[in-house]
């Protein structure tokens, strides 16, 4: 054994000696090469280094615009003036900053920031003093320049969102690329001090399209790295970013925001044939120009502490109980599974007992005998308590999902939530608890675990209006055709639901009859009201009289929900409106729907009044 070992190592010894010789040989080659470069060719390279100081400057591309469906620009670029100082050319910082501050005030925090920036960067890197300067300040600074060595005024491009507020959540905003973006993309464009990339919304999702391609220009620089001459030959022009077209109608978006006034919530108008979103609004909004110019901490605090949460995109990211608007899904499931005939009647006494619990209908005195059509028209809860017990939520879930609930859609912006369509499987997976019949009763009237976003409710309504196709919402125009999948629900059943939704709005006794439809002669509205409960009502409270919503604090008031489509005979648009804590009944949501659907149908001659019969 020992002998064998020795044999091995002797051979290794010889071979590692060969290796060492080979390695030294390679080092010899490298040393020779270094000698060649640094001694033989040294003069050549010195000359190249001293005289021939070419550099390639990046030519910034202009960012593409974002425009609405009619080409109205909603995100554009505007001239932006900045002042920078180059540390290596400044002799006395305090003096320089004092001279600048005579024209452009510099506060203590900015002064501190400038000093840190100077310390953290090589001496030749320009440090920003201030940006978004007025033209008057900018020109005054340019005049004073000879007295302030090292200061350089720069004109560039900045992002501008002209329609303040109404597009905040859709567009997002732009900002400096973060560390992660820099690491993932080697493109030198991202390293330019004036480069901005999309941070949220369409600005982020379409960033690659909007960004454009950087150009290159050969420049000659002197020993300090300053540009002394720019070459135009061989210049590669920057390629401007492409425009992104949205399906949104600015006029409708603004009009919808007006209807909301001070209220909080979300509204959607969707084309029932193409799925194009004409309005996608979350209220209240904020001015996303503030993000581009840099938000002050006071503004940030104000936004974050607002109970109406302006930053939050409620229309796609807010989960609300759909309340009675969920009854359409339950109805369709009952019809599809032939659990009840539409003519079967249920007697509503105002409450249903289940074990030792009592479930109330919204109408405390009861509706009396109700068939399916009447139950939706009157929004009778008792009827749905009854049929859900025969049907089961596991049969409702596939229908609700086919209608668009419980899922997100590929509309090109982030922040969507999928909401909840609960059944036994969901509850055991998410909560680890067994499903109880009481959960079914709550879910049947769109309360309890059920959560949906305004966008999902709009898609549901659009699919009900379309009858045949599983309409998908679309926000960004992509030139693709709208080939939607089959909805896969019996069209006769959907027409029956449509008819009942028509009765809700246009027949006496319907829960929305008193809001007078659309108020346009000959154009009929079909829809459904909803009152989303935020709090449970205790037995004691019921006995002592339920408090009127107006007397409750804002946070505890019910959500007002309304979904609808019009014209009833030949559907064109569907809508969903949720007013957060809008109070009992669908009044606020229904009034907003009436206004915005009416305007969507009549503006731009989409549905000219004179073409309407009757």
């Amino acid at each position, binding site marked *: *054994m020992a002998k*064998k*070992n020795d*044999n*091995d*190592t002797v*051979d*290794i*010894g010889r*071979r*590692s000696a060969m*290796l*060492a010789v080979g*390695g*030294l040989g*390679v*080092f010899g*080659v*490298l*040393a020779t*090469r*270094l*000698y060649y*470069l*640094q*001694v033989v*060719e*040294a003069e*050549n*390279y*010195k000359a*190249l*280094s*001293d005289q021939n*100081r070419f*550099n*390639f400057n990046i030519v910034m591309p202009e960012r593409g615009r974002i425009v609405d469906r009619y080409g109205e620009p909603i995100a554009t670029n505007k001239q932006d003036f900045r002042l920078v100082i180059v540390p290596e050319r400044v002799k006395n910082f305090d003096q320089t900053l004092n001279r600048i501050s005579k024209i452009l005030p510099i506060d203590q925090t900015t002064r501190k920031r400038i000093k840190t920036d100077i*310390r*953290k*960067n*090589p*001496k*030749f*890197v320009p440090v920003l003093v201030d940006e978004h300067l007025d033209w008057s300040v900018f020109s005054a600074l340019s005049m004073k320049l000879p007295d302030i060595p090292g200061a350089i005024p720069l004109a560039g491009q900045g992002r501008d969102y002209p329609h303040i507020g109404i597009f905040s959540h859709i567009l997002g905003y732009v900002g400096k690329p973060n560390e992660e973006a820099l*690491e*993932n*993309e*080697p493109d030198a464009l991202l390293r330019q001090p004036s480069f901005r990339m999309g941070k949220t919304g369409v600005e982020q999702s379409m960033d690659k399209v909007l960004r454009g391609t950087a150009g*290159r220009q050969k420049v000659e*620089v002197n*020993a300090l*790295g300053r540009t002394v001459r720019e070459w135009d030959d061989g210049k590669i022009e920057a390629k401007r970013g492409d425009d992104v077209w949205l399906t949104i109608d600015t006029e409708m978006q603004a009009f919808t925001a007006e209807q909301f006034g001070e209220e909080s919530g979300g509204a959607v108008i969707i084309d029932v044939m193409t799925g194009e979103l004409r309005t996608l609004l979350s209220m209240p909004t904020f001015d996303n120009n503030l993000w581009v110019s840099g938000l002050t901490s006071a503004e940030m605090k104000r936004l974050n502490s607002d109970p109406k949460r302006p930053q939050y995109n409620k229309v796609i990211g807010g989960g609300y109980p759909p309340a009675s608007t969920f009854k359409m899904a339950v109805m369709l499931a009952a019809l599809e599974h032939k659990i009840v005939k539409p003519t079967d009647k249920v007697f509503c006494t105002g409450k249903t007992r289940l074990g030792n619990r009592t479930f109330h209908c919204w109408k405390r005195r009861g509706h009396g005998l109700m068939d399916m059509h009447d139950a939706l028209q009157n929004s009778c809860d008792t009827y749905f308590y009854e049929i859900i017990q025969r049907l089961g939520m596991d049969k409702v879930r596939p229908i609700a999902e086919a209608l668009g609930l419980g899922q997100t859609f590929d509309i090109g912006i982030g922040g969507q939530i999928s909401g909840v369509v609960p059944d036994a499987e969901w509850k055991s997976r998410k909560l680890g608890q067994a499903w109880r019949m009481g959960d079914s009763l709550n879910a049947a009237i769109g309360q309890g675990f059920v959560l949906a976003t305004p966008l999902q409710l709009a898609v549901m309504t659009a699919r009900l209006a379309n009858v045949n196709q599983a309409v998908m919402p679309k926000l960004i125009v992509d030139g693709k055709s709208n080939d939607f999948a089959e909805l896969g629900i019996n069209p006769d059943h959907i027409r029956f639901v449509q008819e009942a939704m028509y009765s809700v709005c246009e027949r006496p006794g319907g829960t929305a009859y008193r809001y007078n439809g659309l108020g346009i002669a000959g154009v009929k509205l079909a829809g459904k009201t909803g009152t989303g409960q935020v709090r449970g009502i205790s037995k004691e409270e019921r006995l002592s009289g339920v408090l009127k919503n107006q007397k409750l604090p804002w946070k505890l008031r019910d959500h007002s929900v309304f979904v609808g489509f019009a014209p009833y005979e030949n559907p064109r648009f569907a809508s969903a409106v949720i007013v957060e804590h809008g109070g009992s009944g669908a009044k606020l949501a229904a009034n907003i729907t009436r206004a915005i659907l009416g305007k969507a149908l009549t503006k731009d001659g989409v549905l000219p009044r004179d073409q309407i019969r009757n």
Partner: protein
Amino acid sequence: MAVATPSNSIQGKLFELNWLLPMLIFLVGCIGVIVIYSATGGVWDLGASRHLLRLFVGMGFLLVVAMTNIRVWMALAYPAYLIALALLIGVEFFGVSVNGSQRWIDLGITRMQPSEFMKMAMVLALARFYHDLPQWRVSKPVGIIVAAGIIFIPVILIINQPDLGTSLLLMATGIVIIFLAGINWRIILTACIAAAIAIPLFFMYGLKEYQRSRVLTFLDPERDPTGASYHIIQSKIALGSGGVNGKGFLQGSQASLNYVPENRTDFVFTVIGEEFGLIGGLGTMSLYILIIAVCFWLANQCRTLFPRMLILGLTTTFTLYIFINLAMVMGLAPVVGVPLPLISYGGTVMFTVMAGFGMILSAHLHRETKLPRGSGLLL
């Protein structure tokens, strides 16, 4: 030959440790701090301070690895290799793409590059394999096929990422170890002929477009003066303009004006050449040669195969790093993104290099430890 086995106490081991190697490593690391400081325009916070911190942490790590018994590394050889292999396969499916190559695994707090881990794991596995394999089987089909498998499975996975530089490094290290194991000259000759046929075919069909462009650019730097060959041209200007004495510390205009991109990482040697000239360049190379020579000397003192193979294999990887990096910077090899160990800025490389030297010292420190043969796979 009766050298006392190292005492098992920590003091005893610290006393027995070869201190020349860590001192040389620390010296080269300090050169890195100075050069990075200059490369970033004389700003302490842009890398130099981090590099110094990493150097200290790395030295501590090196000592911990060195103190660990060689039996631990031997026992871990195959498991480490299999884990590295699993991670490489995992990267195919769950990896994070950076700059178009899928090389990283996201661990939440940090990202790791399994190919980096594989560099060490493969050397360990091969050293273990040859330790267990009787000499007469080295040139037999079993010996060749298993060794080739250990090398080429990870190489193919890494080419796929795609990361040409690392896979070539891995392959070269493996081939050197097979050579050291004493494979028949006839087989070496056959392999050379096969390679001469296979390489042109691989260049035409096996490479990604950008990889081919890098090789072509290397062959003809004027092909694309603003793109891929910009690195090489500017790097040569920086070195050449340094002359014999250099322009002086912090005086390198090529470096400070950012003509040479990546000058604190892969192209850090250009700063040495520009600011300290031929003297600085050759001096740095001499220090590297000294480190490598010490490693060979340490290997020669080992009487058992595993520590010896381990030291030589790890030294080979270290040496190849230096060769490829210097050749690239001097325009003798295409740009493949291999850092200069101990001097280039970067946490992963520092960690890997220190772990490697730790194992070299551990192997030397425990050179008299009895390591049974023939207990491994297949035998």
